[in-house]
């Protein structure tokens, strides 16, 4: 229990209530990872309790935990959890003082558009205003700024409070076009077309009525308290040529922005990727099933489209075969939970990864799946409830996510040193450095 040193002077009951719970929660996030056992009902196969607790620790101090908590793998029994690295013998590791380069280029086309490089091979995935609170959006964007990378608006508009952070924000254009305006396209260093998402491949986004508050509705230009279902797919896109028209539309509105195309992982994901490239995409963002943060039918999360671990090598090889692999950046998401997952995804053929759930866990998510119930997340994350959303103070959240990124960067450098690689770019597609554990 947090010590009670809350100053009462001149505060309203609401302020005191928020302060009290915030203090207790922060104390709890620090307490549990330091115990022999976590809360008994915490965790699941993909994110076991240890991994959640390790993520809380990393978010606290920006380093991998030195407590023996497993911060590398989950217990899903497959995919990333079955892969490990073939590290070199210790004598061959690169020296500690050598800092491997983690930067990746997001524009490899050399087409005169912005030459964007990010210093770590990660950025934040789309989480819309409405599906998460404005505080969460600001925290993510601030962390992106602190880390020199990006976060994405998701499909829910662009709250005014994000405008000062626009150089680190990807504007998402999705099928419902919620919040898509000329100025939000113009703000963006990168515009992301969301064709599909891993949490509900082949289905449109959902925002249940309870979360469509008047502020959310105003930004989305919709009716308050009415559920919003984005259509699926883009109804104007029947072919790669139609997709090309879409890309051209954005390129006309914003003549400098890079274009990312976010797709899910169907059987022909390789052809989808190559089609996106030929339509002009700088980034192909593959979002595998099993991931996602938003509300989604359980049947979709588990059963539609393939896991990201299988999609990455398929796409990588196909792009290589088409001799365009070095002209497009492949970002992977959908169940990427740790620095080790990031490195494995890159070894399988991605350039970098897009994170979502890991960020939410850093700021207090317990993965209880109640995001859509009642007033939304009881920890103030996936909610638009005015009181609950104050439970995640923006500055605190920004610091936690920044720390998590720092911890990941620390581990990625360590992995590269142990593999004898000087740059993360050298790891791409190096399946020979992986081993399958059974």
């Amino acid at each position, binding site marked *: *229990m947090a010590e*009670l040193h*809350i100053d009462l002077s001149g505060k309203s*009951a609401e302020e*005191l209530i928020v302060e009290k*719970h915030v203090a*207790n*929660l922060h104390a*709890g996030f620090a307490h549990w990872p330091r115990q022999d056992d976590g*809360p*008994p*009902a915490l965790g699941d*196969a*993909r994110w076991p309790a240890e991994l959640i607790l390790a993520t809380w620790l990393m978010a606290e101090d920006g380093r991998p935990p030195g407590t023996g908590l497993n911060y590398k793998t989950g217990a*899903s*029994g*497959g995919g990333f*959890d079955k892969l490990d690295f073939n590290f070199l013998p210790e004598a061959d590791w690169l020296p500690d003082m050598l800092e491997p380069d983690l930067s990746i280029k997001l524009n490899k086309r050399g087409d005169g558009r912005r030459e964007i490089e990010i210093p770590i091979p990660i950025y934040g995935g789309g989480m819309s205003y409405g599906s998460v609170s404005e505080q969460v959006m600001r925290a993510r964007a601030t962390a992106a700024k602190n880390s020199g990378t990006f976060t994405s608006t998701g499909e829910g508009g662009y709250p005014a409070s994000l405008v000062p952070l626009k150089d680190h924000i990807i504007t998402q254009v999705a099928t419902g076009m919620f919040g898509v305006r000329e100025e939000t396209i113009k703000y963006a260093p990168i515009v992301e077309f969301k064709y599909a998402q891993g949490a509900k*491949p*082949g*289905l*449109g986004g959902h925002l*249940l009525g309870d979360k469509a508050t008047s502020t959310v509705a105003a930004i989305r230009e919709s009716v308050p308290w009415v559920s919003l279902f984005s*259509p*699926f*797919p883009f109804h104007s*896109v*029947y072919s790669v040529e139609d*997709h090309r028209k879409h890309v051209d539309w954005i390129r006309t509105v914003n003549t400098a922005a890079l274009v990312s195309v976010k*797709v*899910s992982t*169907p*059987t022909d994901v390789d052809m989808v990727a190559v089609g996106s490239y030929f339509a002009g995409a700088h980034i192909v963002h593959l979002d595998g099933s*099993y991931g*996602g*943060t*938003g*509300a*989604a*039918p*359980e*049947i979709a999360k*588990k*059963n*539609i*489209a393939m*896991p990201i671990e*299988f999609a990455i090598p*398929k796409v990588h090889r196909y792009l290589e075969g088409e001799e365009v692999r070095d002209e497009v950046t492949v970002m992977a998401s959908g169940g990427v939970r740790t620095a080790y997952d990031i490195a494995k995804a890159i070894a*399988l053929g991605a350039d970098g990864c897009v994170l979502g759930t890991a960020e939410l866990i850093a700021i207090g998510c*317990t*993965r*209880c799946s109640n995001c859509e*119930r009642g007033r939304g997340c009881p*920890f103030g994350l996936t909610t638009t409830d005015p009181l609950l959303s104050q439970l995640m103070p923006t500055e605190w959240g920004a610091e936690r996510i920044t720390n998590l990124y720092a911890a990941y960067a620390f581990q990625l450098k360590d992995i590269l040193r142990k593999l004898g690689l000087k740059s993360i770019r050298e790891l791409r597609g190096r*399946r020979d450095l*992986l081993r*399958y*554990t*059974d």
Partner: protein
Amino acid sequence: MDHHATTEEHAKSGVYHRYHIHTVEAPDRERWPSRFNVHVRKAGLAKLLIKEVFHYGPQNKDVILSRPCVYGVFGGPVGGFAPREEKCVGCLRCTTEFPDFVRIEHNPARRALGDSYFAFGYVDAISYEAASGLIPVKGAGYRGGFGGEGWDGMWTDMSEIVRPTRDGIHGREFISTVVDIGYTPNFLEFDERGRSAGSPPRTFSIPLPMLFDAPPASVRDAALPRALASAATELGNLAFLPVAALAGLGEEKLAVAPLVAPGDDLAAIDYQPRLIAMDGWDAKLHQELSDKFPHALIALRTAFDDPDLLAYFTAGVRVFHLTANYHGRGEQGDFVLDLIRAAHKRFVDEGIRQEVTLLGSGGIIAAEHVPKAIICGLDAVVLDTPLLVALQANFNDECLDRSTSEFQLPRLDAAWGAQRLQNLMASWRDQLLEILGAMGLREVRRLRGEMGRAMFMKTLEADAFAGIEGYHG
């Protein structure tokens, strides 16, 4: 409950009606164990209260009484001293805030529901679906293991763009879930004068690819056949029921496909059913049924791995109800997914798949299993244990088949039961539409045997990981 026109009534009216399943909330009748156990150490709570009273002062009563649970677990008259466990959704906020004296645990009694195959996660899902008629929607991604054996080692496809076969999710109300049951010829035949020759098609359609299986012998509640038949009447599908169960039924027996065994009193079938099933092959009975019920299709209920399937075809059977046990295993132990594929392939290889209808049951216990079973080759599924779970049946130990399983049902009210079954079907049909919509398919008939729209873990893993040290397929 209000009267809503049944599918049959709509069809007779001659006016187009979009198929719709009427759902009404039908809460649990029996209180099942809560999902979580909530332990609050009373001394710790009392200490907290005293500390907060001192700190905030009595004028800040709202602050003192503000508790972490937003779901009302501590909202009773004495708050955390008597938590309302049934409301707990396991968010863990309380134990995060008060690790010293609040502890949340999964309730082992809840986890013991079902049996080793019908794991509690499936029971949970069905209990929600039958109560609400809704699709389970949750946040925070998938929580289960990676792929797996059987159904879990299979994923369905999706389409990123508009396909000519789809009209987007907004058109999903117009995705058809109608399936045909019966016989259609492979091709048309004409005589020398150009007149149609050969056997004409004999089919009828049902609006969803799900039928109800006859309940196990251990469930004797007379309200159960009524619930099954009434739900089938509303839904427009069929319920298989033993001949002996017909006696207690009125009009709703029109939605019943009698399940007939040699020696049954055929006089009890005092109406013209659309479908009659023989429980095991019996040439004499087949002939008798064909003679006595010339307008009915005669189906054969037999095991998936019955070696004589093609011989039955030669003997005139065109509708097969193939069965695995309740755990989805065939007589040789093969899993139902493989059994379906094998049976489908046997008919494909003979060039007669189009002429038969394959219904299948056993081990199909979740909404996701329906499209997967159809992709593997069934025309429609026949549901067994999920129907009982929807009616809050408790399993006595392992429940393996119709003859030996012991289920305990709460005292059944047929109207409540029928509504629970309708709700379940509404939810499962909507989930089927999600899968079809994602693939860009406009009708479930096109899904049958569409193996190209399925992805299997074994194949994908071999493609992705071949060559990685230690991977041996």
